[in-house]
């Protein structure tokens, strides 16, 4: 008989078992899909579990910082130190906080009335405050020594009250606004430039972080005006349906800014095209009071008169997150920390609140396996985000009853307006009326 070639699967157990107790287990892998049936259904189940776990671990509130005696009306981030934040109170008090130790570093009574404006100079040793008592005070800050100065380095008295103050991101100048927009040099007691545009009162002012000579200013005549500090005349102005409270510049897109409006919406504009908004962000049920961008430029946070803080993606009309607590009242100011992980909000009931930017994220260092698991879960949620079950779990947010009711009412109002608009379009001759897109609807006029 001829010899045949025979081979039978024969595994040497030593190749598959660990040698000592301190060794790791050997785990041979085979990616053949035959060995992994129901891959799609199992992935879907994992995605569903990941979505549920995300909502289970969503505990965004970290700490409440108390100490102020009145509502908090201004906040400023330290340009270098992540843990340092300054808050200004309606009774004129300024406090410097350390967020990592959750302690107040120093408190000083800066103004007699509101200390509305608060801004850090970019060289980070000084900060300036402007108040309703018609004075600007410049303070020096030394984080190393705990007891900072009780007296300001410099006081500038003016005829006007100041509503906001902001430092340039590059040079030593800063801008204030009140009845007029004024550009100041820190060395001088008189403004180096001042702008007016027929606006009786300015509410907010912000320097562009990239085009450092450009600043946006919001006025009580429902306008957002753009100024260049090098020019003597203002650049452009856009008028919306209602008053804009603050603007925030996108730190990555030089021309984009977002305006927090009294009508409860936020409008993202391109500086070059003011006739239409890039995106209208609707979710707040009451006036939006403050807005701040994340350092990545992908998202921004807004604080509102409806006692909630919301986080919006830049290109989405709806918020991805809403933060509220039973004790938090009207939110006057919000800031997104420069490490992209935290949000600070200051509100009517004298407290500063520290929130996580990603509500279900774990604080502290993660092990490699936790990181891998997080990444995998994130990818799964992304893959199955349009499945009705996953979508429902990921989208659901509990909001307090008044907000829930107000949102329902707002929806009814908007639906009825929409219906009316549709009817008008349907029963009018096509050339007589035209559909105005939502992005243009709220822009009343533009001036240059």
């Amino acid at each position, binding site marked *: 008989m001829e010899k045949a070639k025979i081979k039978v699967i*024969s595994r040497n157990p030593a190749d*598959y078992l660990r040698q000592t107790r301190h060794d790791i287990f050997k*785990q*041979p892998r085979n990616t053949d899909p035959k*060995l992994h049936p129901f891959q*799609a*259904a199992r992935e879907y*189940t994992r995605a569903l579990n990941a979505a549920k776990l995300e909502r289970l671990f969503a505990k965004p509130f970290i700490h409440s910082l108390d100490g102020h005696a009145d509502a908090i009306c201004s906040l400023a981030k330290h340009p270098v130190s992540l843990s340092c934040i300054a808050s200004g109170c309606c009774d004129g008090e300024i406090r410097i906080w350390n967020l990592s130790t959750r302690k107040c570093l120093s408190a000083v009574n800066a103004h007699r009335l509101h200390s509305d404006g608060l801004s850090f100079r970019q060289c980070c040793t000084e900060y300036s405050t402007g108040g309703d008592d018609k004075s600007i005070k410049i303070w020096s800050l030394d984080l190393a020594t705990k007891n900072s100065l009780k007296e300001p380095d410099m006081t500038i008295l003016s005829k006007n009250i100041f509503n906001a103050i902001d430092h340039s991101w590059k040079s030593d100048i800063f801008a204030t606004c009140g009845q007029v927009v004024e550009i100041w040099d820190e060395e001088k007691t008189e403004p180096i430039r001042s702008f007016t545009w027929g606006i009786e009162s300015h509410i907010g002012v912000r320097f562009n972080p990239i085009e450092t000579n450009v600043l946006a200013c919001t006025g009580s005549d429902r306008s957002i005006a753009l100024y260049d500090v090098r020019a003597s005349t203002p650049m452009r102005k856009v008028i919306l349906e209602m008053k804009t409270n603050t603007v925030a510049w996108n730190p990555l897109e030089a021309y984009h800014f977002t305006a927090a409006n009294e009508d409860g919406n936020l409008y993202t504009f391109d500086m070059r095209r003011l006739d239409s908004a890039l995106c209208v962000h609707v979710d707040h049920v009451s006036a939006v009071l403050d807005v701040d961008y994340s350092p990545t430029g992908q998202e921004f946070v807004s604080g509102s008169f409806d006692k909630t803080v919301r986080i919006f993606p830049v290109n989405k009309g709806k918020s991805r997150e809403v933060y509220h607590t039973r004790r938090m009242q009207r939110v006057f100011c919000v800031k997104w920390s420069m490490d992209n992980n935290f949000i600070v909000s200051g509100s009517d009931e004298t407290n500063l609140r520290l929130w996580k930017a990603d509500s279900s994220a774990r604080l502290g260092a993660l092990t490699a396996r936790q990181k891998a698991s997080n990444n995998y879960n994130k990818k799964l949620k992304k893959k199955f985000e349009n499945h009705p079950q996953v979508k429902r779990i990921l989208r659901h947010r509990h909001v307090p009853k008044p907000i829930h009711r107000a949102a329902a009412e707002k929806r009814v109002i908007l639906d009825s307006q929409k219906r009316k608009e549709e009817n008008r379009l349907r029963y009018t001759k096509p050339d007589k009326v035209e559909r105005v897109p939502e992005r243009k609807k709220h822009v009343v006029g533009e001036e240059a």
Partner: protein
Amino acid sequence: MYQPRNSINSDCENGRKSETKLDLLLSEEAGYLEAKGPRETCKFKQSRIVREIDVANRAKSFSLQLSHGPYRLEYDRNGRFLLLGGRKGHQAILDWYTKNIVTEFHTQEETRDIKWLHNETMFAVAQKKYIHIYDNNGLEIHRLKSLLYIHKLEFLPYHFLLVSISRNGTLSYQDTSTGKLVASHRTKLGSCSCMCQNPHSGIINLGHQNGTVTLWKPSMSDPVAKLLCHKSPICAVAVNSNGRYMATSGLDGQIKIWDLRVYKALHVFYNPKPISALAISDRDLLATGFGSNIQIRKDAFIGQQESLFMSESIPSTEIECLKFCPYEDILGIGHNQGINSFIIPGSGEPNFDALAANPFQTRKQRQETEVKLLLEKIQPELITLNPKSILRPKKEISVDKPAREKFDVKFKLRKHRSKTKRPLKKGAAAMK
């Protein structure tokens, strides 16, 4: 640093590269049996194969003489443990690598079928009246009183569903993790004793007395598909591991191979006697058993082959059940004299994935796998003919109000009708 996005082609290339890299990690080589001519392999009987292979593998071929009636057998998902069930009530678990008996007991009543549950610690036995669930110490941990006179059992490990078909043709799905009866369908096709699962999609295939094979899922009370496979009662059904092909055998002695993607018969094998048992291995070897004979066909799904790959016989026995051992070149045969374990080179998948099944699993790993399986338990509604259909969710139908249709006022002209042509009033008709 900014890097330009890769094109699709280069992505594919990377995928291919990583795949070849992964292939390097597949350390084991599949078994084979090669002879000079195509008909020559058939001449290799077990006795000769055992003589020619190495000593370590010789022990894998063995036979047990048992006297409690036709035996059924079942390998667990790792291929390590062997469950034996005699018709007259003898049950045993064997670690067949070491030949250690894990447990052995007698149910004292007729047992029709046995099935492992999700791992080797639990198994279900269809006894005279009820299904009993035992653990690996032979302790009865549960008795399913709602299911009566069960003929055949099947278990879907990823769904934790114990599927049973009863004497009167009721198909039941019992969730073994929650204990709930998920679904119960009346097949309305009489008594049924032929069932297999599609390991790719979780669909249950039933073979009936009227020659049809019906495909079932828990969320539908009617069969998903119905195939008239033979003109005689169905004897055995088997589906291969990627769910594409089905083999059926009828009392007419035919074996038909079906393509389950188009529901068409690919080809037919004829046999002088009806086939009583069918099995398909991981690498698509088709084993058929009739009387005391076992025949193995290679590439049976590709086309009609000239000859058999292997053929064996166990004299003076009646084959009851054939099962391929996962990840091994082993065919287990249950018959009325006991069981046999035959070596079939090239039948098993050589490289296992430790996260799917691991013959060298430790206790800790088994417990961890159990928890993982439970966390990822697939809901019974997700069993569909196409298991990838979940990736394309159905569009939700929006409940917007339809636009109001234009309403035309139509004036109906009232015809003047003479009194005689007017229909009679009800009362008037009655009076007449």
